[in-house]
């Protein structure tokens, strides 16, 4: 067994970078902060690859040929009860190692890219400090040894996302978006927390190794019917999934994601495409053995995933802001991952969905990050987010164009690019579970191809827009990451995932099922064809179709008015009908009662003090009358 304790460095380096750059960043030249951050991540990247190599190919396997969970490092952080305690540590198993690779790769690319993209921005070193903080939190999240450590880093991820979305803090829309992202995910995290509390109450442990072991207490305790016909454990899993749904922008907690595009584009690439938003998927995968035992909870995951994927795909077809299209696309893809987890069984071939989900997570990270970074390069060149301002860019930005095309093909699921393989596995897993959902996902697949190529044609083909100054290709620091990620998007699908990352660690064989693969590729091709017809040249077809669909397309364009519903609930109900009355109640009733007591005392004393008139004769009268009454009382009335 190799000692894996060096993996803690992968976490610590970004933390140190964050502290150093955060505290002293203003004293350096901006570029120094950038270089320090990038170097830190580069070391982390190298270490992660080294770890992955060691884990997968040298010493990860246990006696039975399955990958085991390795506790690389652990340290007591806080004692709670005699059974419950929070540890900080590093847990290595296939999914966490896979995530390490994904995160360090994308993060490193984004760091590199940002040196060019953010050059000259005010707050350059603040940006890099926060990126490092994010990387640290995200890495801590994936290697968490227990669910509470995960929750801790989960929150940290949330706050670094808040800081990064609100990077342009003088822009009101960015501030609002960051606030929205934080509060929505925070609300979801409340569910996560309640889930953790219920889980820990039932099982008496936070530890992942104990929780997911075959003799896990989670499988035996908390099974009795508790509420609405479901067991405590099922409820706790549903609540935990709520946390995951919040971070992963699943319907109906997705509303923050499109707005989060207010952040700088590299941030969107890192956080809102490849890493943070898949945390929910990762969370479900992490607790998968328990989910597997609670069928209702897993069904919830499946339906929410499936609905989110189709919902987002429909909305994506109507958006004009290129980053929003990508955001909805992300939501749709993550929905597919959730769906895959939801349909999956546990162990060996049964766990195909699990494997597919992780596989798609892996490949998606590459091509989605690539798409975002490409979009960033375009925005950098055009100074606009909106499709209408673009067109014919393929001549001006050849590298961006080529890499973007690769990514579009990959996400559309065209073989032999990476997206094809992972999506195929998802569809195969769905096919095993339910025909209806399989068709839904097939539709999503086609829609994905359609809106991606709609995007592609609108940016790089279509009308020949006249620009104020000719757009030019991005500098090398930006194109280099594009090219590296394009390689990933091309070849990531060739990784033999089924033999590396599976639900129970046992490798199994997969093969491409033609009955699934052919419809999938066809759906993609149909989508691409329609997009080509509609958008390659500037026509009025899209507008006509948009108008034909009438109310539906309008609703889709307005994101089905979910935002408005939320706004109604928060602004109207919470602010006006809860908070305002509470404030009023406090000032007038509670405080009024206190002031009322004071007022009554005051008033009474005011009345009484009138007796103190200063008129000696009045006093004397009272005195005499009193004395006489007493005399009367004592002499005649008390004569017994």
């Amino acid at each position, binding site marked *: 067994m190799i000692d894996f304790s060096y993996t803690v460095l992968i976490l610590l380096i970004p933390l140190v970078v964050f502290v150093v750059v955060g505290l002293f960043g203003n004293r350096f030249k901006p570029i120094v902060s950038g270089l320090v951050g990038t170097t830190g991540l580069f070391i982390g990247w190298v270490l992660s690859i080294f770890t992955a190599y060691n884990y997968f190919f040298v010493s990860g396997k246990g006696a039975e040929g399955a990958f085991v969970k390795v506790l690389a490092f652990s340290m007591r952080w806080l004692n709670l009860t005699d059974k419950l305690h929070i540890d900080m540590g590093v847990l290595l198993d296939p999914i966490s190692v896979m995530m390490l690779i994904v995160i360090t790769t994308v993060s490193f690319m984004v760091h590199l890219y940002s040196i060019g993209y953010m050059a000259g921005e005010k707050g350059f070193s603040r940006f890099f400090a926060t990126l490092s903080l994010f990387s640290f939190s995200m890495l801590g999240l994936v290697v968490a040894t227990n669910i509470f450590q995960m929750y801790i880093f989960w929150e940290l991820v949330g706050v670094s996302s808040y800081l990064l979305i609100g990077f342009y803090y003088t822009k009101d829309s960015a501030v609002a978006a960051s606030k929205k992202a934080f509060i929505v995910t925070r609300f979801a995290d409340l569910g996560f927390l309640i889930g953790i509390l219920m889980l820990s109450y039932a099982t008496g442990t936070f530890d992942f190794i104990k929780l997911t072991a075959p003799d896990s207490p989670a499988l035996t305790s908390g099974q009795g019917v508790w509420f609405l016909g479901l067991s405590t454990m099922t409820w706790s899993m549903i609540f935990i999934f709520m946390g995951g749904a919040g971070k992963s922008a699943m319907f109906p907690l997705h509303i923050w994601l499109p707005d989060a595009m207010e952040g700088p584009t590299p941030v969107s690439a890192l956080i809102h495409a490849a890493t943070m938003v898949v945390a929910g998927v990762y969370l479900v995968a992490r607790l998968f053995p328990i989910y597997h035992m609670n069928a209702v909870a897993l069904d919830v995951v499946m339906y929410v995933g499936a609905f989110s994927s189709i919902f987002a795909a429909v909305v994506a077809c109507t958006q004009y802001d290129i980053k929003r299209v990508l955001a909805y696309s992300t939501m749709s893809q993550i929905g597919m991952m959730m769906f895959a987890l939801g349909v999956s069984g546990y162990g060996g071939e049964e766990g195909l969905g699990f494997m597919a989900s992780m596989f798609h997570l892996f490949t998606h990270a590459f091509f989605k990050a690539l798409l975002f970074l490409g979009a960033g390069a375009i925005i950098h060149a055009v100074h606009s987010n909106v499709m209408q301002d673009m067109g014919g860019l393929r001549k001006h930005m050849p590298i961006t164009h080529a890499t973007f095309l690769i990514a579009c093909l990959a996400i559309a699921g065209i073989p032999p690019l990476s997206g094809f393989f992972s999506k195929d596995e998802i569809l195969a897993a769905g096919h095993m579970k339910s025909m209806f959902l399989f068709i839904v996902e097939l539709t999503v697949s086609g829609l994905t191809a359609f809106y991606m190529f709609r995007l592609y044609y609108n940016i790089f083909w279509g009308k020949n827009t006249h620009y104020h100054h000719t757009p030019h290709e991005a500098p090398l620091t930006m194109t280099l990451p594009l090219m590296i990620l394009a390689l990933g998007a091309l070849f990531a699908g060739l990784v033999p995932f089924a033999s590396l990352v599976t639900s129970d660690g046992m490798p199994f064989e997969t093969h491409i099922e033609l009955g699934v693969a052919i419809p999938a590729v066809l759906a993609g091709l149909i989508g691409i064809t329609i997009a080509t017809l509609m958008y390659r040249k500037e026509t009025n077809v899209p507008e006509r179709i948009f108008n034909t669909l009438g109310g539906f397309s309008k609703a889709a364009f307005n994101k089905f008015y979910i935002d408005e519903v939320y706004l109604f609930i928060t602004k109207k109900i919470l602010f006006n009908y809860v908070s305002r009355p509470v404030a009023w109640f406090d000032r007038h009733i509670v405080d009024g009662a206190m002031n009322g007591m004071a007022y009554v005392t005051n008033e009474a004393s005011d009345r009484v003090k009138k007796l103190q008139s*200063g*008129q*000696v*004769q009045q006093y004397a009268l009272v005195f*005499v009358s009193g004395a006489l009454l007493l005399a009367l009382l004592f002499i005649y009335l008390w004569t017994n």
Partner: protein
Amino acid sequence: MFEGVPLTWFLITGTIMFFVGIYGFLVRKNLITMLMSIELILNSVNINFVAFNKILYPGHLEGMFFTIFIIAVAAAEASVAIAIIINIYRRLVNIDVEKMNEMKY
């Protein structure tokens, strides 16, 4: 009964004088007339003292001594009171008790 005059008569005289004094104290506005009312009250008490002394305890002198002391105290009181009244008059140019409510509340 003292040589034909019952004790009760003295007491009734004293009582009437006392309450007339009380009445005067309660209604008169001028400080000096209030002072006079007080003198009435003191004197009525003196009458009671001496009457009790003579009729109920003929061999003793306590009542008389009390009266003497009361007279002394009354003298002291009157002198101080008049000093105060004159002082008040100097400040306020009147000695109407109703207008003196500086110390109310």
